[in-house]
């Protein structure tokens, strides 16, 4: 049998007044803290929308393009949505997580945060539910990768995207997400 130390069952020697209050109201305190946090959430959400001015554009290499809304892009660039409407697998191409354009794209286009995206990807990759995105280090590599991989999706700076679009109009679909929202 396991050795068990006997305690005086009804005598709580270390019961301070704080402990009494905590014991009696700990759930109330926790719920209050939770609600306060949610209140702060709304304030912070309003104050955290000062995104950078540049507007990276989405580039897509696929014959069929759905309505490219912000929720759609969030799902794709989080690795949750993996197929185009025609069944073609989506290959996500991004810049490294510390690249300024990556930060701009995540915050400006997806209205998410780089650490948030990274967490979601890590959880999906290490639970076996996603293949990591393809990472490129330059604008040339981004253009080359999207142009040569069927089903690829990536992003470029605004002016560059327009130029690339003119140069490779037959292959690359250049999408301004806001222009296409709501049809």
């Amino acid at each position, binding site marked *: *049998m*396991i*050795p*068990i*130390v*006997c*305690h*005086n*069952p*009804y005598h*709580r020697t*270390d019961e301070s007044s704080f*402990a009494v209050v*905590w*014991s009696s109201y*700990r*759930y109330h*305190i*926790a719920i209050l*803290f*939770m609600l306060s*946090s*949610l209140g702060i*959430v709304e304030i*912070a*959400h309003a104050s*955290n929308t000062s995104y950078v001015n540049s507007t990276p554009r989405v580039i897509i290499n696929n014959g069929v393009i*759905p309505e490219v*809304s*912000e*929720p*759609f892009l*969030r*799902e794709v660039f989080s690795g*949750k*949505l*993996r*197929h*185009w*409407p*025609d*069944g*073609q*697998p989506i290959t996500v191409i991004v810049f490294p997580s*510390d690249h300024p354009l990556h930060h701009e794209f995540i915050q400006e286009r997806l*209205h*998410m*945060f780089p*650490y*948030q995206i990274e*967490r979601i990807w*890590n*959880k999906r*990759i*290490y*639970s*076996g*539910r996603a*293949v*990591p995105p393809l990472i490129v280090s330059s604008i040339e590599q981004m253009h080359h990768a999207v142009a040569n991989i069927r089903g690829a999706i990536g992003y470029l700076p605004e002016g560059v995207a327009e130029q690339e679009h003119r140069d490779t109009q037959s292959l690359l679909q250049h999408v301004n997400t806001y222009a296409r929202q709501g049809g």
Partner: protein
Amino acid sequence: MLIIREYSQPHSAYLSLLFGVLLSIYCIPAASQEDHNQRWQVNGFIAQGLTKTDNSGFINFDNSLSLHLTELGLSARYTLDDSLSFAGQIVYLDADNRYVKGARVDYAFVDWQTNLFADVKWSLHAQIGRVKNGHWLYSDTRDVPHTRLTTILPQSIYFDGFRDVALSSDGVAWQLHHLSDKGTWQLKWSLGSSPLDNDQRDRLFSPLATGTLTQTFTHQVSVFFAPNNTNLELGISVLDSDFKYVPGAPDSEPFSRGRATSQRVMLHVQYYALNWEFSSEIMRERAVIKDALFNGFLSDEFGDGGYVQGRYMIDARHSILARIDLFDKNEEDRAGQRLIEQSQGQIPEYFTSMDQVTLGWRWEIADRWQLQTEFHRTKGAGRLTPILFPNSSLNPKQYWSMASIQLIHWF
């Protein structure tokens, strides 16, 4: 080479199967070597840390500085075609008393994903094999150190004693995604059971048991909703699971045949902001034990608990965390008086609850390298093993502390 000691029965069979399948896949002729390489994806992680407790057997029996905080993992994924993949991961874990030391097959499943109605607004994702529990915020990667905010997760929800039962199960799972005008919906469902070996029987039931403890099934459903234009996610999940105990040899077995049921309802919330994040999960659970201790024994208790935690990012590399975690094993005995009476004074009242305050600091040293440290101040011992027969000699104080530091690398 990893030595599989405790998991000699169900897990070694799974390891053999996993390696066999991976080897077979590797030998499949591909159109080209480049094509073959593109279909493979290999990832992994390695983490080593130190832990120290006082007045608790949570980590070790003598409260000495423990080097046993090791987590290793290697995962592979092979894409069979546009919709079908095979994925598996083996892990080696050593966390002293927290759970059984050894190698495990974390997951090994066939993965299938497709759009429904030729519409990206509806997609279905399904797995069959050893599938992960993806219903809670940290459940599917609770052993992957860089995906969680602390080395030791809040025990009210992520009780280490239930780790192997709660992490994954052999069965099927599917997730339905829908992009609506209001936000993104996820409906998740899973059904299966987890293999339990003798060590887990000892932790969940009693070290004196000589029989066989099996999980009959675990059934989970969850719904998550992320409103558009926010970084908020809300969810609700339910769990129903049954266990049965078959006694061993009559001359050495103090227990009788019995059944147990575990049911849980949980609420989840997670919010991301520019410099900080917030998450919380609360639950109410029911534990029913019929017979097992002796014929005619019946225990039917409702417990509850949950945590709230926030992380603030000081700069790109440093962040701090604060968390409050609460747990009561029995809603009708929050003070533990009934526990004392039932045990005839053998088990102190603080084994009926466990409240914890945690402070943590994270330093992202370099790309894919991270140092994580934390301090826990705890009141109570309600989330320590063995569950049915608590060991108060190893946990002599109501208040106890724990500190840990862990270096993590992933690839």
